């Protein structure tokens, strides 16, 4: 007879770049100056997009929009680790992921203006349409990864979701299946501390979100989600591991939703401004800038050029998005099935 500990879990934390722009050389992923500049430029582009989307919404030119402010490093850093052949399953707060993966900017604006045509990803991108019901797309990534493994394709599938999503049944069912079949999938949780008005500590009694992977037999890593180098590094490792047939990884990006849940929300109803201000000091763009400045690859002129380029790209995208012909009302019927049903053939005559 005995009473003993038969299992316990450990969760690895990683940060490489601190708030002052200092790095731990030993943990730094191999990145050229050009690659680091690309990170910075993508962060600026994502932030510029986000700010413009918020402005357009206020002007009545976009519908409800979910801001990514504060989460740019989690999104850009992770998305940079994927190849075009990989399959990505985004949630609704993923503008930075889509931008990094090369999703056409006008289409992202088009989506938030309420046009389904924007979810038809370009043929060279395996990006699934944005999933609105929280966490329910997690099993889809598992299935796609399973199928890729079955077909012998050396790709990874990835699901993006938030801390709220980890309370959903599909999170657990998807994780469980991924663990059992060692599916080549990377789960990326942006723990932005808030699911609308629910703070992280009320979402789950777990000390970390990452540790939930332990229960399903694979590794969960917690990473400073405002540190683009750390996020990139853990995602790159997880993608590599998936492609080598070593199964799934769960990444918890520890970050913060600086803005409201969406443009339809007012976060001042449920959270303290001091908390938001404290997180602003951890800004992901600022710390990369400080690092680059120290390395001599950031100057005011460079920054101005990056901002102007981003602004021009966004101006152009808005112009294109707003110039798109309105959708054909028949589309809402004709994409239900491959062929119209006899009843739909009658209905479509209304248009």
């Amino acid at each position, binding site marked *: 007879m005995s009473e003993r500990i038969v299992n316990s879990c450990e969760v690895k934390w990683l940060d490489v770049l601190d708030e002052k722009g200092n790095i731990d050389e030993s943990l730094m992923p191999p990145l050229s100056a050009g690659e680091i500049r690309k990170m910075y430029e993508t962060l600026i582009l994502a932030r510029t997009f986000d700010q413009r989307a918020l402005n357009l919404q206020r002007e009545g030119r976009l519908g409800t929009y979910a801001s990514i402010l504060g989460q740019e490093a989690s999104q850009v850093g992770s998305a940079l680790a994927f190849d075009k052949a990989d399959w990505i399953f985004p949630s609704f707060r993923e503008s930075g992921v889509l931008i990094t993966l090369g999703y056409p900017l006008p289409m992202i604006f088009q989506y938030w203006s309420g046009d389904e045509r924007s979810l038809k990803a370009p043929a060279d991108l395996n990006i699934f349409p944005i999933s609105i019901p929280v966490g*329910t797309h997690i*099993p889809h990534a598992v299935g*796609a990864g399973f*199928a890729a493994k079955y077909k012998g394709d050396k790709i990874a599938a990835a699901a993006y979701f938030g801390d709220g999503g980890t309370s959903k049944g599909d999170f657990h069912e998807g994780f469980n299946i991924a663990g059992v079949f060692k599916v080549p999938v990377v789960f990326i949780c942006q723990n932005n501390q808030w699911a609308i008005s629910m703070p992280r500590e009320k979402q789950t009694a777990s000390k970390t979100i990452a540790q939930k992977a332990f229960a399903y037999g694979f590794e969960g890593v917690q990473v400073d989600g405002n540190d683009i180098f750390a996020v990139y590094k853990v995602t790159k490792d997880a993608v590599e591991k998936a492609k080598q047939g070593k199964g799934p990884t769960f990444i918890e990006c520890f970050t913060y939703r600086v803005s409201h849940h969406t443009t339809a929300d007012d976060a001042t109803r449920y959270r303290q401004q001091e908390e938001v201000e404290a997180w602003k000091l951890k800004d992901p763009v600022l710390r990369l800038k400080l690092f680059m400045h120290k390395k001599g690859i950031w100057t005011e002129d460079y920054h101005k050029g990056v901002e102007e380029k981003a602004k021009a790209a966004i101006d152009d995208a808005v112009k294109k998005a707003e110039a798109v012909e309105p959708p054909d009302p028949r589309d809402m019927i004709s994409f*239900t099935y491959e062929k119209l049903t006899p009843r739909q053939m009658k209905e479509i005559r209304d248009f």
Partner: protein
Amino acid sequence: MPKMNMVQAINLALREELQRDKDVIILGEDVGLDGGVFRVTEGLLKQFGPERVVDTPLAESGIVGAAIGMAAYGLKPVAEIQFMGFIYPALDQIFSHAARIRSRSRGRYTCPLVVRTPYGAGIKPPELHSESAEALFCHMPGIKVVIPATPYTAKGLLISSIRDPDPVVFLEATRLYRLIKEEVPEGEYTLPLGRARVVREGNEMTVIAWGSMLHRVLQAVKAVDAEVIDLMTLRPFDEETILRSVKKTGRVVIVHEAPKTCGFGAEISATVAEEAMLYLKAPILRVTGYDAVMPLAKLEEHFMPTVERIQRAFEEVMKY
């Protein structure tokens, strides 16, 4: 030609499709080693291996959700949900995703998925093993709903469902699994989805049924000049065959096992009223399960339409 029951016919359809197309895979609880709780997938694991006949964890939403990802990636998964009463956790996946992926992505991604599940009463199991919830799925655009009533049609319809480019919910009446045997050819034949079958021609009334109720109807019609339609596909359903028959007979009786309110009989009835009102000689009648929770074994015979209840409806419509 070999005589088969419905279990054997469905098994043969799965076997032939697995053989024909490497993208077809089967997944579900106990579908492999155990061959499924009704033995529908018996022998398939041995023949095709664990990569294609996949025993999954006990997770209905996860099974269907994963199958959606597989289908979008290019496989043709056939997912089994052990009993229809256990499909409810997967409704979110079926309604929110399988039904919508083609539309949501404007055709970039599709969901050629089959969800097979046994339905209906008659095997004396515990609660939630006897549901007839087909109407839930019929309401949802993007889903097809198929319910075979015989071994022959089960095979042809299942093959069509597997090859269909859109998600199909395929309902198998547990009562019929081993009840009847008929000749089922080996080798390929398909029955088109969306087409009904006139099982018996007649002139005085049109009786519409599907799945297990078809057999009760066939018992009940012996003494009347009734045309009997086996609907086979409920969504999209074959309005043309129904209306042609109704215009001939002028009387309609619809029989289903599911409760009356918002049952699929309501849809058929409304369609007949809209399209063939002037041909009707009598009110359209429905003989259905009651607006009640499906009872356990001791009361299930009282719940389901009986031959007597069906015949009373025939007498009623013939008064006009």
